[in-house]
């Protein structure tokens, strides 16, 4: 069994805005591209052109439909990857020490050299955020692009996870959730960011921002004046028009 380090001051993670995520999968594929080419073994694909294609992805978008008792059904796009939990059960369950949480920034990683592919960590993770790569036989998971965020070969503006850099609608935010003053912490405070499945006691670092209320019926009394007819019938309308034109700011005559 592997020990967790003492809680780090810096807690790097993602804040994902469910109000803005349009479910386009840009983050999914950008992640696949970067992490196939970078940290550890490539993310492989089995039967990629066949009857049952399956591959390793570190980030997937699920879509859930919510049908309230009253009102319209809603569709929520829900991107999910490792939440880099403070109390990460995937780390403590690891028999070889391959799964670990970085002491300096809280990122949960797999040391592929030490991974024996036993999948205990994947069973322990309540979020289903780990995938065993079928070709390499090692456990793969979100690295928070640890090979991007400190990478001195990248321009500073690009030192963010690939999924954050690519997200077209700006629904993904990266930063230090251990710092109450950081932009991501403030966003969480303003928008009521929440933990995924807090009852699991894993203390996830990643946060989700809830969708704003939708299909809220307006107060018709307030709206009514906006549509008050200027006159009754077409004849009267031309009369109104003439007066209205004369009253226009800058109108000649």
């Amino acid at each position, binding site marked *: 069994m592997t020990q967790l380090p003492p809680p780090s001051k810096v807690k790097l993670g993602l804040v994902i805005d469910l109000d803005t995520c349009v479910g*386009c999968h840009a983050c*999914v594929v950008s992640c696949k591209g970067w992490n196939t080419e970078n940290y550890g073994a490539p993310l492989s694909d089995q*039967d990629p052109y066949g009857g049952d294609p399956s591959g390793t992805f570190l980030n997937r978008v699920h879509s859930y439909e919510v049908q309230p008792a009253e009102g319209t059904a809603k569709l929520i796009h829900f991107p999910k990857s490792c939440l880099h939990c403070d109390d990460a059960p995937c780390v403590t369950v690891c028999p070889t020490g391959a799964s670990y949480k970085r002491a300096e920034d809280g990122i949960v990683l797999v040391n592929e050299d030490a991974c024996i592919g036993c999948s205990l960590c994947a069973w322990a993770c309540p979020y289903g955020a780990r995938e065993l790569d079928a070709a390499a036989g090692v456990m793969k998971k979100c690295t928070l692009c640890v090979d991007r965020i400190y990478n001195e070969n990248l321009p500073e503006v690009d030192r963010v996870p690939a999924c954050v850099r*690519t997200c077209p609608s700006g629904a993904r935010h990266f930063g230090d959730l251990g710092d109450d003053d950081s932009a991501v912490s403030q966003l969480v405070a303003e928008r009521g960011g929440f933990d995924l499945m807090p009852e699991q006691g894993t203390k996830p670092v990643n946060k989700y921002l809830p969708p704003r209320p939708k299909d809220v019926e307006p107060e018709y009394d307030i709206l009514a004046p906006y549509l008050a007819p200027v006159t009754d019938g077409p004849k009267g309308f031309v009369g109104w028009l003439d007066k209205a034109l004369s009253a226009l700011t800058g109108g000649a005559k």
Partner: protein
Amino acid sequence: MPKDQPVIDLSPKVSDEVRKTTCYMCACRCGINVHMKAQTDGKLKVAYIEGNRDHPVNKGVLCAKGSAGIMQHNAPSRLRAPLKRTGPRGSGEFEEISWDEALTLATSWLQPIRETAPEKLAFFTGRDQSQSFTSFWAQGFGTPNYAAHGGFCSVNMAAAGIYTMGGAFWEFGQPDWDHTKLFMLFGVAEDHDSNPIKMGIGKIKERGARMIGVNPIRTGYNAVADDWVGITPGTDGLFILALVHLLIKAGKIDLHYLAHYTNASCLVNEDPKSPQNGLLLRDEDGNPQVIDRRTGKLARWDGEGVDPDLAATYRHKGITHRPVFHLMADRYLSNDYAPEKVEDRCGIPAKRIRAIAADLARVAFDEAITLDRAWTDFRGREHTQMIGRPVSFHAMRGISAHSNGFQTCRALHTLQILLGSVETPGGMRFKPPYPKPATAHPKPHCKVTPGQPLNGPHLGYPHGPEDLCLDANGNPARIDKAFSWENPMSAHGLMHMVISNAHAGDPYKIDTLFMYMANMSWNSSMNTGGVMQMLTDTDESGDYVIPHIIYSDAYSSEMVAYADLILPDTTYLERHDCISLLDRPICEADAVADAIRWPVVEPDRNVRGFQSVLCDLGARLHIPGFVNDDGSQKYDDYADYITNHIRRPGIGPLAGWRMGANGLQGGRGAANGGQIDSYIKNGGFWVEHIPADCAYYKPFSRNYQDWAVKMGFYDSPQPYIFQLYVEPLRRFQLAAEGEGSIQPPDHLRGRIIATMDPLPIWYPPFTDGHVDPVEYPIHALTQRPMAMYHSWGSQNAWLRQIHGHNPLYVPTKIWAANGFAEGDWARVTSAHGSITVPVAHQASLNENTVWTWNAIGKRKGAWALDTDAPEATKGFLLNHLIHELLPAKGDGMRWANSDPITGQAAWFDLRVKIERSAAPDESQPVLPPLASPVGKGPDELTWKVGK
């Protein structure tokens, strides 16, 4: 760090070189950084693709398709060499041949028809992004039969936009994302302008601005909309005109804007006996007339200082002339458009319609924004401020692909204009070189002279019957019958009618069908099974009815099997391209821009860029513009053409880094041999910003007009006013009423009068009059997933894991009525055919609508997929249910399943019935597998280029 924590490299080398080009995973044309890594042999290989932060379109972001480009570039479905058919058409049996053999064969077919009857070539180029080049080639060849795919895509949107205000959405214009406070999105939009719209939605949500989605289906953008309006398909126009009704009635319209910047103040002849009835009153020089409020007298619409009157009428020689705005008030104040009258039809409660109208009024007028930017209008009037109506709209194929789509798109533009929210802060803004009114575009040309070029550009904007493409007997001059009385304003042609017309020999037979990048034997055709039959049908002597078919594609699509000769194209990372201002540019509202593609890697197969092949073929055929005076080949390849072709003096395919008198400049200038290198150094694109004092009010702003002339968009200032009243429509109506010498056939008169109304109208989709709505009560639609672009996506190992299945999504009411359960199948039947397919439940759906993802279904053997791929076993197309003609209704006619004005394919008019079915082994109908000319893909991918 604990002592047992592994040491990892936090700064690995990202790549050996970054090459910046333009994406082609869809039509959005984002800038991409292609990261290259050197192999042991020193060759660079594509390792990773990300968005280019400097690029005007995507500013660094990239969608799923774009990031998956690497899997398109290495797809096993890539064609490898020119192919000559060896088996029967449709079998997929080919032999590889050399390029010289391929081009000699093509020349042997094309040379004789060019010399005797050029119209016997039908050249249609699908999802082409080089239309200014391919049309130039076709024009030089001399055939009138050229177009791209707009006729089955969104020509209603494009044509309605050009005729009404000089441009529509996407490449024409965009919401003012920085200022808009209310954004209203109509219909399917996820597949056009995709990243900019996602970026825009993110931007407005960050600001707390609101978004209303109007779509029968709540997915994608509609899922994040603050309000979702689950409208009944085909009724958008009626809903919009109800909003227009309420806004005019309440006076919540921008009267100053309407008077000054639209033809609402132009005077219309109202004498039913006059040959000018319904046309605008003009002076001797043809200038429309208004009443000048300063004098109360007639004046030119664009006269210096004129203050046009929206209200005053003019009587002359016993004829009353009323301003357009009177006609609009007459029509739209009618209770026919009252919310209570339209609510059932639209499936939107009247209360909701009122609330939306009130919201539009409140935001446009109570929350108006003002920019302190002085500007001068074309009448010389100086303004100290720019007043914005921060309400913006977007729509694409959703409202477009109906038989009432043109008028619906017109209605939407009319709503925008009434609110004063076009080209004003917070509203919709055009992207240069748009706005460009119909009068600044060419008219269509069709005069054929054997051995000579066509007499002008094929496609354009007719202004009346004299601009139609008809032969001496009044019959259609084009094989697709574009610009005929059946669809007079078919500005993009009708690619979807080419095969059926060619097969029928109506209006005439052709010899060679030459197509590029269009999957016509599959997802790009209505009546897919019928089209396959037409392509393989033989005459009494056993020859194919369509004698020769040449096809160019980069991939082993379903269409490949139906051609006699295949010209294999490159992938988008292996080619030159220009995304030209002469074509469909990539500009932003604040800037003019164009871009290139260049071979970031050389092809490893015996393939050539299609445009380079046309340079070669053009020379072999001695097409003017493709040969030098001595008869030698003029352009070595497409890059040579891009650099050296001169379209008008000083104007070439690319506007950046042209040679001016004092060095390099943007816009106009002579050719510059180093131009492409300059583009590459700049990241693959060129951009120049519009001066701030004319970034809004473009069509009306003197400074913008001068800037546009300087940049070469046109050769003299062309200010204009928006055409709420589209006079060319009225000219066709007048002809149908019997006026003039060019007359429609009698059977079309009634329809022309009813549909070609110069003010927007709504009429029910034509299908509703041919198919019993009681027997077929359900609307059936398709949408494209954001992570796929038509048929291209399924060959992509990563994308097909995201969208490998396309069940038919069924709303709760129909789900319950049929007793459906998860895993069930249904038989879906239209008046034309039936399919049996898997179903899935979706609650967030209009209660009378079913839908599926477009073009996920694949034919066995295509795209280098295994024959048991789910796309081929459970995937399906709705196309089998849609015919290019409507069912007969006893009048002896077969009416086209398209918009009567533009000919746009009415995909979304489809009506079906549905019943639970025993689960078959595979989706029905099942078609026999094609032989794959490229074999199939590997069993596993571990794609890591670096060590």
